């Protein structure tokens, strides 16, 4: 009987296990863990130097961390929260993307103008692809056919064929493209240009520009509007764009491309992540060292939580 109660208790604990947001803090070399239900910090983990891009394996067993100044991609076991090994990553890894095959990791190496493809099982580099200067944003299409890298100085999106690992095409975008995101269907690509202050929506099939989105916030100088992180809701309703030192997140109607609202968050808002079946959106605010939480339905910022120094990336484990 006691065993039964214990088992039932364990089961409830497992079922009701809260989602956890993992935030990389690039200046304190740590990850901040936030309980998504309580919106409170529950743990801080030491990791490699200057952690920036972070991403889960598809089974949520591992967390890959771009430890930029350790020149490594670290692999953390999520059950123990211990870094179990490093992957060869090339120099200064900043952002990366995992192929839907859960095996190939595409890493942008900012200093050496290449994209490194790493096999996460064999822990070997299987290809290095030359791209533009200062590669940064990375994304893999949902069908796994395309890999896109953005290069900050060349101002291009580089289209890489995932089966041959060859660069096939380039799309010129505005100055300093930082981040790229596929729509859920994979038909569209959203790319932000930090200095250009714009977001380009591009058709995946034709690689043609569909729409250039610009931003204007009353009382904020246009030079401060620097779009970086992008997240799209699965229902195709909204796109959220982090506007860097403008300290606002833009809410865009993803079908008409009209900017609906600007939400005030902390200073230098950088990356975004959804939680709770996309009902919440977490933002990392670098300069103010905190994470803001947006209610997606009400389009309101409900809380801001102190994190480490210069929070950069955020991912949420369901």
């Amino acid at each position, binding site marked *: 009987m006691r065993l039964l109660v214990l088992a039932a208790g364990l089961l409830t604990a497992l079922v009701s296990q809260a989602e956890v947001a993992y935030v990389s803090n690039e200046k304190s070399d740590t990850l901040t863990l936030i309980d998504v239900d309580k919106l409170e910090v529950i743990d801080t983990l030491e990791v490699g130097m200057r952690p920036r891009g972070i991403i889960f394996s598809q089974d949520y067993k591992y967390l890959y961390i771009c430890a930029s100044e350790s020149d490594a991609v670290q692999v953390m076991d999520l059950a123990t929260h211990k870094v179990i090994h490093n992957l060869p990553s090339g120099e200064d890894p900043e952002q990366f993307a995992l192929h839907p095959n859960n095996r190939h990791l595409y890493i942008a190496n900012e200093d050496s103008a290449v994209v490194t493809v790493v096999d996460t099982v064999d822990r070997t580099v299987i290809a290095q692809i030359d791209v533009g200067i200062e590669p940064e944003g990375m994304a893999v299409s949902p069908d796994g056919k395309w890999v896109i890298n953005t290069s900050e100085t060349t101002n291009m999106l580089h289209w890489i064929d995932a089966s041959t690992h060859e660069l096939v095409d380039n799309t010129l975008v505005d100055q300093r493209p930082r981040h790229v995101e596929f729509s859920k269907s994979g038909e569209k690509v959203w790319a932000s240009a930090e200095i250009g202050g714009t977001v380009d929506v591009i058709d995946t099939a034709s690689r043609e520009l569909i729409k250039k989105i610009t931003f204007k916030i*009353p009382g904020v100088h246009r030079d401060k509007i620097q779009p970086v992180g992008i997240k799209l809701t699965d229902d195709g309703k909204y796109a959220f764009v982090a506007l860097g030192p403008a300290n606002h997140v833009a809410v865009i109607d993803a079908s008409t491309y009209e900017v609906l609202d600007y939400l005030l*968050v902390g200073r230098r808002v950088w990356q975004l992540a959804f939680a709770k079946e996309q009902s919440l959106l977490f933002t990392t605010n670098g300069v103010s060292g905190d994470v803001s939480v947006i209610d997606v339905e009400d389009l309101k910022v409900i809380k801001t939580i102190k994190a480490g120094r210069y929070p950069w990336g955020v991912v949420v484990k369901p």
Partner: protein
Amino acid sequence: MYWTCFVGVLKRELLRFWQQRSRLISALVRPLLWLVVFAAGFRAALGVAIIPPYETYITYEVYIIPGLAGVIMLFNGMQSSLSMVYDREMGSMKVLLTSPMPRPFLLVSKLLAGACISMLQVYAFFAIAWLLEVEAEPMGYLLVIPALLLTALLLGALGLLLSSFIKQLENFAGVMNFVVFPMFFLSSALYPLWKMRESSEWLYWICQFNPFTHAVELIRFALYGQFNGQAALVTGVCTLIFTSLAIWGYDPKRGMVKRKVGG
């Protein structure tokens, strides 16, 4: 009997308020100018950090809402002090004070009536601010009622106390200069006190000793469904002191109005 008397006083205040509709407009124009013009200008200049009761970053407009609600009540408190002086000059105060009811009851009735008018104005202001998309939490608008009432009583009592000192209507300008503006500017109504402390420690402490600061904080917390015990205590105690002093001031045997009412 007491109730009839209170209703009489309240009706008179409401009637006076209704007859001076421009007073409502002027009472609203002042804070709205602050909200629309001043706050817009300072929006970028003044970064507001996260301080309780706020849970995230807010715009300057959102920050000054409780302070502007307070200032509406501050002006209204002073306005009723002006009307007391006016009543005294016109002789209608005699009618009120010769009522068989105890004088403290009459004065408290007058305070409560004034507080009702103040709160009406504040809610009109909240409504306009809401239309301008400057809003608090929905439940906050209900929970703020006790805080508004206490603040209105505090400022009304202060006005009443002052009116017992003012001999002539003309002195009212002095009240504006030496009471209203210092109370408004040396408080947390327009800027958070930590910001004040950054520039001057002694200004910060003056603000801390200003009961208006605590009244504004009481309103601010209540608007977000929170209770600020310290602010409530200071506001409550100050209200009691000011009311007692005002009652003392209007006591014909001892107070400041001895000669005037008698003569």
